């Protein structure tokens, strides 16, 4: 099967991820379109035999980051959110019942990790490669994303975390 056909076959997965990443349908499809155009233009950079899906999601990730940057999004991009910042999430818990909206409220970097792990069921190593971050960062973002989502959905204060044993 040639790459073009494989790209087409991956469109539904791209749309699903884009929809969860970008929030609304229109910007998600814009994101998919830009990703496909860019992937097609850069296809010579893809190495045959490697994971086309991971490569494509990397392209989408880069396109998305550039779009967000261009739009000067107010997304909290800081990975190391101080604990106080969670107060907003907690007080919003009564309002944000909707999972869709709760995901949109996650910091963009945490959202990407959670979606690649949960929706795409990528291995942690694949996520690290796709997003170009160390695997330790994947794990810490995943942990934060889940806890933040849980606190938004249940309104509970963040539970005490397990202490890390090295």
């Amino acid at each position, binding site marked *: 099967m040639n790459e073009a056909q494989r790209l087409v076959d991956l469109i539904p997965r791209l749309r*699903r991820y884009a929809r969860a990443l970008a929030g609304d349908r229109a910007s998600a499809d814009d994101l*998919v379109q830009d990703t496909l155009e860019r992937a097609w233009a850069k296809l010579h950079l893809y190495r045959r035999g490697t994971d086309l899906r991971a490569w494509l999601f990397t392209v989408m990730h880069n396109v998305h980051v550039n779009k967000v940057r261009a739009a000067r999004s107010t997304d909290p991009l800081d990975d190391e959110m101080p604990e106080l910042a969670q107060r907003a999430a907690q007080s919003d818990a009564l309002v944000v019942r909707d*999972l869709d909206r709760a995901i949109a409220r996650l910091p963009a970097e945490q959202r990407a990790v959670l*979606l690649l792990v*949960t*929706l795409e069921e990528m291995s942690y190593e694949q996520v690290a490669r796709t997003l170009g971050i160390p695997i*330790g960062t994947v794990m810490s973002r*995943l942990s934060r994303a889940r806890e933040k989502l849980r606190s938004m959905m249940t309104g509970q204060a963040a539970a005490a975390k*397990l202490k890390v044993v090295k």
Partner: protein
Amino acid sequence: MSVAPFTEAELQAYVDDRLDAARRAELEAWLAERPEEAERVAAYRRLGDELRELYAPLLVEPVPPSLAAFGPARARWRRVAAVAGWVAVGAALGGLAGWELRETRPEAAATPEVGAAMARRAAVAHATYSPEVRHPVEVGADQEAHLVAWLSKRLGAPLRTPKLEAVGYSLVGGRLLPGDNGPVAHFMYQCNRGTRVTLYVRTEMAGNRETAFRYAREGNVGVFYWVDRKLGYALSSADISKEDLLKVANAVYQQLNP
């Protein structure tokens, strides 16, 4: 309080069902005695299920055709659209032979009213000045450089007079006219049999970036008009066929867009 024997990363891996069997069993035994941690893990798993369920419809719904058209498919789609546009133009012109399809030719539609109003004014100007024997123009072709500089200055845009000898017409001269939206340049050309065509050029076509040729008929005057960047052009004649007028219009267009 004893230190937990599992890392947070292992707990996440357990949520994702990525621990090996032995480690999973140890962790489950540990969780069995810690209801709070067990509930947290269960909540993560529930959220994962809800998340997959929430976005599952996107995996099965049909992909919009516009998304599937990328790369070569998109280029092909654009060519088809461009050719379709030209076929429409060609049909409007009435099956003209030798009409060259140029992809660089403007495609976007102008506001029809603006274009139509320009065509009407151009037709009136043509009907007014082209029968003139003694004063057809204000500045003659013998002062072409001055004519172009003067009208360019008045219109606030760099104008050029196309050379139409190849299609049998030579410049008589030009004049300044009042238009809907400021000064208008009006150039007159004549063939050796005395037949005249006039080129009406107006500015302030901002927003109407480019259009294809359109044809209008006002009384006995036929007009081809189009917009190119900020300038609107209308080429009029009462004495030649639509096909011949189109040849001249095509020559004008190509001269102004080399």
